[in-house]
């Protein structure tokens, strides 16, 4: 389970943690190695990928909206809950979702039973999986 503030990301499948240090770099003519001087850390950048798995369209939409709402510039505590990494402050950025036809299985009766176009589509039932990816950037608390 990966939590960000009070929100738990659903069905996390992959967490990638990147830690970068930026160097000042100058090419020096005639030398075989450039001049490099460490400058500053970029902090941890965590990419969380997972799937929203629901049985109705309304729940999928609500969860997508919940993740979109976290992209608001508020610094929250990110806890990877891996047993080792302590929680740290982060900003959420660049949420991405993917609707795939193979992960979008509507129950047959609902396709033919009601018009998809209209109010009844909010209650569509079936098996829905929406892969998502979010980027979380470590930062200092405001």
């Amino acid at each position: 389970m990966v939590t960000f503030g009070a929100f738990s990301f659903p069905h996390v499948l992959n967490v990638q943690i990147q830690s970068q240090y930026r160097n000042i770099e100058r090419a020096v003519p005639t030398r075989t190695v450039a001049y490099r001087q460490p400058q500053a850390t970029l902090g941890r950048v965590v990419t969380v990928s997972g799937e929203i798995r629901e049985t109705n369209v309304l729940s999928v939409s609500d969860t997508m909206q919940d993740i979109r709402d976290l992209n608001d510039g508020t610094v929250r505590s990110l806890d990877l809950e891996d047993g080792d990494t302590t929680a740290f402050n982060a900003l959420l950025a660049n949420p991405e979702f993917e609707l795939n036809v193979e992960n979008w299985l509507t129950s047959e009766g609902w396709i033919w039973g009601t018009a998809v176009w209209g109010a009844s589509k909010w209650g569509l039932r079936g098996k829905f999986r929406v892969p998502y990816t979010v980027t979380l950037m470590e930062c200092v608390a405001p």
Partner: protein
Amino acid sequence: MSVFIDTYELPHVQRVTISEPTLMVEKLVPGALPYRAYLGKMGRTIQIEGWTDSTQILDDEIRSLTDDETKRLSLPLAGDVGTVSCYVTDAQTPLTAEGYDVYPYTLTIVEEAGA
């Protein structure tokens, strides 16, 4: 998966990718974590991949979606995530010898904020 642009239903949609890039300014601080400030969002960019069995549809419907008109994109979702006021900025319709009678298309759609 039913995806509509205004009242036109896009044929055989295979994949919809929704991304919402964040605008952020980043300042490196030696010996400390970087200063990061949130500036806002670019709005949603939506890429729709699908196919059709007719070059006529590519000509008359898919490619003609790219214009300066505001459109309403309806995804098979509920609430705010389900409808987007948008512009269609790019329509790619490659024709390949291998895909006989299957003509893929990719649409790039950007959210529009309104006046």
